[in-house]
């Protein structure tokens, strides 16, 4: 099953995130990623929802029924600029330090904090790039990691 990306324009009202996520889960569908934030329009937020559904049409229709949902666009993966952010805390010691930093900079990750025995990197990119970076760091011992929701814009809309 391939991923589907929905870009959902909503009214910035209390409870709107709960309404959207509960509508999706109530119909028995999973969300791979959900992110929400303000837009350039006052009083409007945008959610980017990534799911793996054949039933995406039904989800769109159910979401459209929500009074606070203004517009739903399914993004065309071929025309879509998509990005995600990652913060990763990895252990380092004298032996691994150089190698970790080298690998990180080759991956275009920025180091945001370095301590005695750890380093924190930030990386922005496609989900695949983030996966790759995670795999690269794994052998050194990942202490903690967090990924932000995926956000997307279609270039020809």
């Amino acid at each position, binding site marked *: 099953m391939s991923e589907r990306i929905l870009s959902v324009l909503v009214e910035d009202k209390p409870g709107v995130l709960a309404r959207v996520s509960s509508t999706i889960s109530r119909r028995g569908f999973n969300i791979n990623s959900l992110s929400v934030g303000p837009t350039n329009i006052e009083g409007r937020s945008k959610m980017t929802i990534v799911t793996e559904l054949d039933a995406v*049409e039904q989800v769109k229709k*159910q979401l459209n029924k929500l*009074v606070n949902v203004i517009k739903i666009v399914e993004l065309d993966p071929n025309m879509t600029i998509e990005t995600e952010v990652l913060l990763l805390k990895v252990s380092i010691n004298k032996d691994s330090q150089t190698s970790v930093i080298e690998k990180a900079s080759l991956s275009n990750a920025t180091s945001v904090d370095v301590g005695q025995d750890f380093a924190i990197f930030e990386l922005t990119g496609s989900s695949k790039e983030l996966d790759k970076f995670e795999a690269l760091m794994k052998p050194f011992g990942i202490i903690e990691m967090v990924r932000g929701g995926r956000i997307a814009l279609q270039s020809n809309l």
Partner: protein
Amino acid sequence: MTKEQLTGAELVIRGLEYLNVSTVFGVPGGAILPAYDPLYDSPIRHILARHEQGAGHMAEGYAQATGELGVVIATSGPGATNLITPLANALMDSTPLLAITGQVASTAIGNDAFQEAYTVGLSMAATKHNYLITDASEIPQVLKEAKFIATTGRPGPVLVDIPKDILNQVAAWVEPGDLDLPGYKPTTEPNPKMVQQASSLIKKSKKPILYVGGGIIHSKANNELFELATKFHIPVVTTLMGRGAFPDGHELCLEMPGMHGNYTATTSIQNADLLIAIGVRFDDRVTANPSFFAQNAKVIHADIDPAEIGKVRDAQVPIVGDAKSVIKGLIEALGDEKLDTENWVSELKEMKTEFPLSYKQEDKGPLKVPYVLEELQKLTKEEAIVVAGVGQHQMWVSQHWNFTEPNTWLNSGGLGTMGYALPAAIGAKTAYPDKLVLALDGDGCFQMTCQELITASTENIPIKIVVFNNGNHGMVRQWQKIFYNSKFSASELTHDTPDYLKLAESMGAVGLRMMEKSDIEKVFNKMLEINDRPVLVDCVVDPEDMVFPMVPAGGSNDQIIMNEEDLKNL
């Protein structure tokens, strides 16, 4: 001129008056008390229910009988949680409802204050939309929005939760203005291209069926439906929610299809080459296993809710729009077309004669519900509003009662809520004091909300209740008989506890009893004569009786169980 300053509570009552609300149902309590103070001085009639579930069903019955908004008021916490069942019920059956609940003070929200429940969260999946008021000045506008959302598009319940301090806060009465709902714009006018496509499918069809439901009733499209069906000779099946949308007894009316539908209605769909589905949602009680449903038919599906189209069954022609406009469009597009349905109509007519609904009432034997119903309808001269509970009796009423007008059949179709009938009948009778309102209930259902009989008698709402007393959760017993080797686990009630006559009397109603055939006329005539108090008839019926036809859940509508004999071949 300075604007009139009112409390939030006064704004609520003023707002309801402004929206032409004349009757509300409810139960007071701490958080909502401020609103009950100005309500006392308002021309709005308040009916004090004995349980918030009852109040909610009353508001539903009011709304379903009138097609207008029903309003229910409850307090915070348990008052609001007791409302969840009627809200979910109204959502399933698309009933326009406004629920106003009190909430703990906004400063206390989130602290597990006394009688605090997260009402907006709890009701989110049981409402079309809901609100938490954060400032008294919002109240008039929110109430107007709430009514608009509840009554337009696909109707449904809307809840407005108001913290107690907001009810006491003072703000100006400002007449509500235009609504700003950028995400809520129901499509009512169908796309003419789709209507054209539908009409060309209809023109080619030799075996069309109009499969219609509650949407016709909500849209008040019964006259248009009648014209469409009769002008072009298209047979009609009416779902459980659509009974009365097309008159029973008309030669084109096949009545109810589905799990307990009659043979011809169910089979007509199986044999059709085209389903013209309007205001229906292909519910599993109609389709059984959808893969075996109407396998030879193309589908035109018209509904005001786009999410219903293609949800269960793909449609060759999807039409989003209000039923009335859709049907008008179809009539116009079909023009003077003569459909070639003569063979089809007569085939179905023969089928009706060959496979009628059947039951056997013996002269000295126990009473059978279908027989009692047919006798009752003969004795009622006027068109009654009939309200049923959930179970065997409900199916028998839908099968055997002749419905000829919309809004005369109220029941809990989608959620199947036991306890609905009595309070819903009270709501209907409140709206139409001069109409005959009959609650035809099961003993199990009745016992779920029977305290509302007190509401009926103290508020002077003389409904008539027939309790079909089979001493059982009859429908559960029927399933246990068929699917669980007659192991009657927890389905037995008792015939004689409560004593329904004493119960009725103690609650200010008249109690009557019928046990055998010879009682029927006498007892029902007495019931129909008494109009100054509610009347309850304890109608003792055969506990062994089963509802047929039947298609087991998940089965195929091609395999209809017609009687107990057929069960042996299962």
